[in-house]
């Protein structure tokens, strides 16, 4: 039997055993998770359906038969496909580093008589499934809502399934290829070359984002054509995301010949890039891997030198044992660029967008839209935090792994440990998000009350999201796993992500409700508004406290009862 198949069958068996092990889990836990997952899927379906309905309404009628709203919705599919494509390339670049180089399984497989191409394919399948399962889960309600709103026919639903696989395979190959090239050539470059190349790449990326935002200069009278034009500018017929979006649209419209053409484009390209990535693995994987193994042996980090030499001074007011724990966590975080690079990119894009709000649209001059934009900014920022805490804070306790006994035997309580993780998360995320909230409020020239509520809700969101990530991380630890991507894809990680998203949605909805009612004049008296505002603040605070306290308490109880 082919070795790739052997590995796939083995993985299928492992998956089978894992699914079977659900029988031994608490029925309540499984029930809650299943319910939460289904609830989130239907909630997402509802939100997308409502949102798309609003887009069609917002777009309105154009001239003659042309319906701006429908055109807007169709363009949004292009934008969605492009965004997902870019995100998949990015996430596959990160995931491939774990699956191709860092996993313990890699050493085991490579000591066997397996060619580097077969090894790559065997690991690649795992890489693809890790990086794309969430797309299948959260993308499906969006596609269903899209189909409803465009009155797509039944073939559209079948087409989604067929287009999905080649669509996720192409960015996975690109991501893996980028990782292999980086591992092969990056460590051999001198620091100056790396710094210059890094700076050029980052500046070019942000310059591109800025250009796209700035060029979308809307005025009230030409909003729709401007939006459509701006959306069109992000498309290119050379991009697989374009082929996928076009193919799906054609399938939905009943134009099957053209749909088949785009599917053919996608499939043939996917097969070709899979072949190329396998060849690349054969050519450069081993030299990169071997060099990386050698690199581990020569990394010298003197305590008083390097980028974190200042850490001791900054942390000096913090008392022990917190200082030691902060020290360890920050250094581990810093020495894993896959972690902080995501922070930098997400918040960098948000910062550019917010700083350019005034150049982008005149809608901010209208109080109604200004309120909406401010609330949506809060939503965007806190959703990014939710993703990042789910990805990076949730696995913190699990990553102590088999070393948990060091902490377990130290004169340190688990209470201290989880609060330290909580404050670490809050301080890191707040440094970015509160700054963005302040910038957003300033750029939109919000009134002091609105400004205050925005910043306050971001702060509360940071606390609640950190509390949930740390709490659920302690409640569902996976001490046997070293790969954070696998830790977060388990039951606990899923529950944490779902709860975090629900928390953010509730927080933003509450804010929108009170502030927009005020703008729309739905409060009869100023006193009514003040009461509603007070109720919103109290609810936001109570929810924040609950989301911090409850998971932390449950997690702490679990750690205390655990046998190390």
């Amino acid at each position, binding site marked *: 039997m082919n*070795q790739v198949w052997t590995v796939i069958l083995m993985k299928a*068996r492992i998956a089978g055993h894992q699914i079977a092990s659900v029988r031994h889990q608490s029925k309540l836990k499984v029930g809650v998770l299943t319910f939460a997952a289904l609830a989130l899927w239907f909630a997402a379906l509802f939100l997308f359906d409502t949102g798309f309905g609003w887009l069609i309404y917002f777009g309105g009628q154009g001239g003659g038969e042309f319906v701006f709203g429908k055109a807007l919705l169709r363009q949004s599919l292009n934008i969605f496909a492009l965004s997902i494509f870019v995100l998949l390339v990015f996430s596959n670049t990160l995931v491939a580093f774990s699956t191709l180089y860092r996993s313990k399984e890699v050493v085991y497989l490579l000591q066997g*008589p*397996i060619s580097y191409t077969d090894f790559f394919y065997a690991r690649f399948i795992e890489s693809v499934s890790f990086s794309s399962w969430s797309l299948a889960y959260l993308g499906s309600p969006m596609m269903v809502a899209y189909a409803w709103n465009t009155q797509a026919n039944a073939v559209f639903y079948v087409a989604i399934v067929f287009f999905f696989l080649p669509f996720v395979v192409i960015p996975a190959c690109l991501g893996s290829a980028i990782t292999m090239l980086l591992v092969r050539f990056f460590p051999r470059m001198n620091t100056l070359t790396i710094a210059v190349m890094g700076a050029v790449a980052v500046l070019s990326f942000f310059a591109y984002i800025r250009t796209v935002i700035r060029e979308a200069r809307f005025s009230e009278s030409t909003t729709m054509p401007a939006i459509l034009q701006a959306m069109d500018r992000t498309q290119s017929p050379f991009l697989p995301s374009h082929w996928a979006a076009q193919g799906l649209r054609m399938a939905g419209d009943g134009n099957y010949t053209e749909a088949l053409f785009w599917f053919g484009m996608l499939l043939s390209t996917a097969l070709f890039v899979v072949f190329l990535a396998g060849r690349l693995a054969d050519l450069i994987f081993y030299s990169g891997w071997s060099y990386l193994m050698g690199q581990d042996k020569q990394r010298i980090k003197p305590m008083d030198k390097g980028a974190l030499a200042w850490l001791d001074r900054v942390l000096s007011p913090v008392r022990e044992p917190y200082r030691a724990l902060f020290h360890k966590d920050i250094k581990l975080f810093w020495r894993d660029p896959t972690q902080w690079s995501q922070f930098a990119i997400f918040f960098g894009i948000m910062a550019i967008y917010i700083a350019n709000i005034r150049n982008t649209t005149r809608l901010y001059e209208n109080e109604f839209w200004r309120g909406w934009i401010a609330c949506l900014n809060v939503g965007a920022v806190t959703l990014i935090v939710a993703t990042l805490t789910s990805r990076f804070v949730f696995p913190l306790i699990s990553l102590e792994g088999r070393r948990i006994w060091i902490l377990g035997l130290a004169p340190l309580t688990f209470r201290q440990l989880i609060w330290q993780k909580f404050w670490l998360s809050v301080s890191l995320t707040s440094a970015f998000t509160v700054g963005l909230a302040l910038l957003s409020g300033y750029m939109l020239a919000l009134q002091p009350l609105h400004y205050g509520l925005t910043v306050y809700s971001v702060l509360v969101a940071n606390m609640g999201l950190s509390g949930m990530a740390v709490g659920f991380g302690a409640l569902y630890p996976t001490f046997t796993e070293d790969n954070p991507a696998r830790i977060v894809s388990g039951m606990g990680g899923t529950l944490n992500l779902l709860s975090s998203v629900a928390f953010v949605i509730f927080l933003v909805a509450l804010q929108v409700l009170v502030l927009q009612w005020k703008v729309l004049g739905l409060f009869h008296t100023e006193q009514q508004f003040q009461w509603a505002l007070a109720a919103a603040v109290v609810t936001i605070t109570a929810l924040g406290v609950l989301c911090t306290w409850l998971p932390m308490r449950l997690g702490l109880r679990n750690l205390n009862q655990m046998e190390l």
Partner: protein
Amino acid sequence: MIQTTQLTKHFGEKIAVSPLDLNIESGTFFCFLGPNGAGKTTTIKMMTGLLRPSSGTVCVGGIDVQKDPVGAKQLMGYVPDHPFLYDKLTGREFMRFVAGLYQVPEDYYQTHCEELLEMFEIAHVGDQLVEDYSHGMRQKLSFASCFLHDPKVVIVDEPWVGLDPKNIRFVKDFLKEKTRTEGLTVFMSTHTLSIAEEVADKIGIINHGKLLQLGSVEEIKALHERPGSLEDIFLTLTRTDEEVPAQ
């Protein structure tokens, strides 16, 4: 069966293994000794193809590990000190997986799998998930899977970790028997000098990446005029400058 020619490994400016020339004949039980950080594991990694040498070559059964890694690895079995096993597979499923990875013919696998599981006394837990195994059982499964494809060379890195005295005796006798009757070549890295003294046909002592001694236990003892234990010679050879008593 194992031949290294001017095998060298540098990590930056640090020399992990200085030019190493070894020629280990078929059917030899070779013990590789050295203190922590001496270069034993680096040498093993180069032999198993996990690390590319800075210069020099490793040939296993006449096949260059760098030029034809798949062919060379087909002849090899490797048992690390802390074996990697798939926790969510049962012992038998793991053996099946290894058979697939090494392309073992189905009929050969059918007859040998149970035999090996019986031999290493883990047949009774063969249908249990590996995550429920003790460290000793995991080590035994690692040994059993290593012999599934009938390797000609077995490389073993400190195999005694987690094994009880009965199993240490069993593994020792099993490997020794295989070298005598089937011509298996064993390359074992260990710190347990008494065992090395007992089983080794040939010994190599390495320190700071340099091979200090090579020969049979008797030859090395005769060279140092020490009829006593191998331990004394080892400690003398590997002590640091600070440990040398002042004259």
